[in-house]
């Protein structure tokens, strides 16, 4: 390699990232093809929820925080109502707890399928993308049946849930679960057995266990690095301590492990939903909260991407005095600084996306400013596809 090529250059990804819904700006600092450092700029999508929330009543707050994320739109309201209930010291009725778990796990299934689909698209496996999104659709139909919406379910309120699951809906939900489980099993086997996918994803973007602890990452990102944490088990809420299920933990820390954790978690979610549907207790779905006394409360739950954390300070009025919100990606994105180091540009965008930081606008990004090279979103995709293609040729 000549001295010219060894010079450091900057490859900007974003603020419109090829894989991510929220605008984020990653400055990759590269030497030749190797990424040596990363700078992250966020704030393009800052909407001031923590500022708005103290102006709303406790009944309104779940509707506000539901709009934080379109994919995990149940996690934030659930954590917020858990914080309000913690502050007020009340417990929702058992039936509400079970329904909360059912909605929350359905959301995890659709979110993980979405990620698997996009990850497949990104490495050039568009069949995986089509499959995963096709079966995700059934889950959205279940949401529409239960809550009337495919997204933004409005399911949680302080003291309980807004939507009941009717007895005649249970067989329909179970039928969908059977289809999704069968098809996801097929997809999982196809993905995990594919030598090309293995070669493409194994050893890419490794986050070691020590780094995961240092950066306090959460969710599948942590569990794929051998950190055995899951708020559903560790800090039981809703009905998670009432039904049998397992936490999936893998030691490798690479993108393949992250994909595998998410795929296997889908089956655990199916188990949780089945268990909850079978044991769904009778009774009311909400309790009345007369007042939220002065004090503080913490609510947290395991979103598809990891722990969602809400803190509420009350002064005894019907509005929170302070509402702190922390989404899982806040911890996970920061850890990209160590995960992309030493990898190639073709792997960088994949590694950045492997923490699943909510994405949808697939093909928009800024051009390279060096004057010589120019990467658009499509070109990054092409780079990634070419690498997969090379690996595929090696296997033939």
């Amino acid at each position, binding site marked *: 390699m000549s001295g010219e090529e060894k010079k450091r250059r900057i490859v900007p990804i974003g603020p419109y990232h090829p894989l991510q819904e929220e605008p984020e700006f990653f400055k990759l600092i590269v030497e030749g093809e190797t990424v040596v450092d990363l700078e992250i*700029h966020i*704030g393009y999508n800052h909407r001031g929820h*923590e500022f708005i929330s103290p102006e709303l009543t406790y009944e309104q707050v779940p509707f506000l925080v539901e709009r934080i994320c379109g994919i995990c739109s149940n996690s934030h309201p659930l954590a917020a109502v858990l914080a309000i209930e*913690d502050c007020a010291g009340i417990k929702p009725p058992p039936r509400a707890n079970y329904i909360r778990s059912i909605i929350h796990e359905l959301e995890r299934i659709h979110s993980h399928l979405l990620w698997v689909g996009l990850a497949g698209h990104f490495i050039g496996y568009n069949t995986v993308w089509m499959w995963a999104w096709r079966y995700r659709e059934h889950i959205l139909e279940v949401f529409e049946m239960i809550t009337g919406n495919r997204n933004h379910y409005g399911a949680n309120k302080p003291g309980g849930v807004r939507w009941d699951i009717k007895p005649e809906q249970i067989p329909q939900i179970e039928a969908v679960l059977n289809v999704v489980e069968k098809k996801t099993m097929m997809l999982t086997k196809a993905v995990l057995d594919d030598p090309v996918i293995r070669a493409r994803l194994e050893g890419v973007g490794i986050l070691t266990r020590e780094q995961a602890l240092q950066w306090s990452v959460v969710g599948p990102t942590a569990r794929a690095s051998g950190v055995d944490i899951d708020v559903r088990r560790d800090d039981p809420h809703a009905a998670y301590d009432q039904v049998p299920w397992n936490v999936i933990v893998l030691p490798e820390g690479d993108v393949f492990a992250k994909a595998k954790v998410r795929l296997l978690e889908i089956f655990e979610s199916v188990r949780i939903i089945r268990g909850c549907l079978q044991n769904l207790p009778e009774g009311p779905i909400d309790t009345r909260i007369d007042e939220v006394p002065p*004090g503080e409360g913490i609510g947290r739950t395991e979103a598809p991407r990891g722990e969602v954390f809400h*803190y509420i300070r009350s002064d005894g009025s019907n509005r929170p*005095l302070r509402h*702190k919100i922390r989404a899982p990606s806040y911890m996970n994105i*920061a850890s990209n600084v160590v995960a992309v180091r030493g990898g190639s540009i073709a792997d960088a965008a994949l590694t950045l996306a492997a923490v699943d930081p909510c994405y949808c606008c697939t093909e928009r990004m800024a051009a390279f400013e060096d004057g010589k090279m120019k990467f658009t979103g499509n070109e990054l995709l092409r780079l990634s596809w070419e690498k997969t293609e090379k690996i595929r040729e090696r296997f033939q």
Partner: protein
Amino acid sequence: MSESLKLFLEQFPDTQVFEKNPRRLYLTIPREKLTAAAKFLHQERGMRLSIATGIDTRHGFEVLYHFSEDTTGIIYTVKVFAPKDDPRIEAQGSWFPAAQWIEREMHELLGIDFVGHPNLVPLLTSDTDWEQGRYPLRRDYERRNEAHER
């Protein structure tokens, strides 16, 4: 009493403990002891930093570091106070990467000075035309009709 709390109180006997419920503990300590306390919780007890919360109250700033002990499901919230006229707190981001972002955020939204932070530049408003030094989460923040002004 949980094992970690017992050891914490041995190390920091002047802690005020408030037990909201068995899984939500609030530990108020003098701000000089914050680094030692955070190092004890993370390095010796293996806790994860969930997040930190900054609050502007009538009596000054409160900064809450929420540590999660995942083996027991307990959240240990370490609470420190900083007076309005001297809003300085030792930065935890200097030794704990997980605290870097949130300290930058509290610095720009509340105006708390984190002493020793490796990179205390604004996190959310660095690439905007937001006027630095206006702290929207402070009690005396004046709401202006930005659209009208333009």
